[in-house]
């Protein structure tokens, strides 16, 4: 089967509005890996909308520019989800479908990666405010990754 055209799907969902202008680039930046996976400290970030029960929930609709720091040794029963725009039925039963914390712990334990950097990061991905995303949210992520000496980042959209 060929991949689904989500752009077409979005257009049909809003027939009265002009087509959404997706961010489009002709090329992409590239930074080669300096170490092997076995030597690398890897950080995980997902737009899944999970938060710990003692943290505030996300705005489940759109444009929430905050993120939650989730310790990688978190008790998984403490995680909740606020995100209304993907089918999270399976993610609620097994968060590893969209936020593979348990699997990354195992990848570290078996030495496939050097370290699973704590905390992992969760946010609510339905962000239309691209300028604020790029001017506020992304620089704070980069600062965190620099401080925790991350060698590579693994990103999961939902």
């Amino acid at each position, binding site marked *: 089967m060929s991949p689904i055209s989500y752009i077409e799907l979005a257009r049909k969902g809003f027939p009265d509005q002009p087509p959404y202008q997706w961010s489009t680039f002709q090329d992409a930046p590239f930074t080669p890996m300096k170490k092997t996976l076995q030597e690398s400290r890897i950080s995980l970030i997902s737009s899944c909308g999970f938060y710990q029960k003692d943290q505030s929930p996300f705005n489940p609709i759109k444009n929430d520019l905050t993120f939650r720091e989730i310790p990688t040794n978190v008790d998984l029963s403490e995680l909740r989800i606020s995100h209304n725009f993907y089918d999270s039925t399976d993610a609620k039963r097994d968060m590893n479908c969209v936020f593979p914390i348990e699997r990354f712990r195992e990848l570290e334990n078996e030495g496939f990666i050097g370290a699973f950097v704590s905390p992992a990061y969760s946010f609510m991905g*339905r962000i239309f405010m691209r300028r604020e995303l790029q001017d506020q949210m992304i620089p704070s992520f980069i600062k965190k990754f620099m401080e925790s000496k991350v060698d590579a980042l693994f990103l999961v959209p939902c």
Partner: protein
Amino acid sequence: MCHQSVGLIARKVEEAGIPTVSMTSALDITRLVKPPRSVFLNFPLGHTTGRPFDREGQMQILKRSLEFLVEAQEGGDIKELLNVWSKDWELSVNL
């Protein structure tokens, strides 16, 4: 929309000197936003890194995806995983 946000984050983090790899379930959006390295898994949204309670499948997907950090040759490269969700699940998505 999440795919666009994740792509924009990956691009900026990569520009700051940290290699990234981004999973994707939406190949058409990924082709526009062009994260530095993408791994396409043709599963329904909500299953970006695998099926529920399928530890082995999830591990295989994550390992093949992490390996792309090292394998990718240039910015915008996309690796497609061959895992099949079901024969024709795409037909049930309303286009």
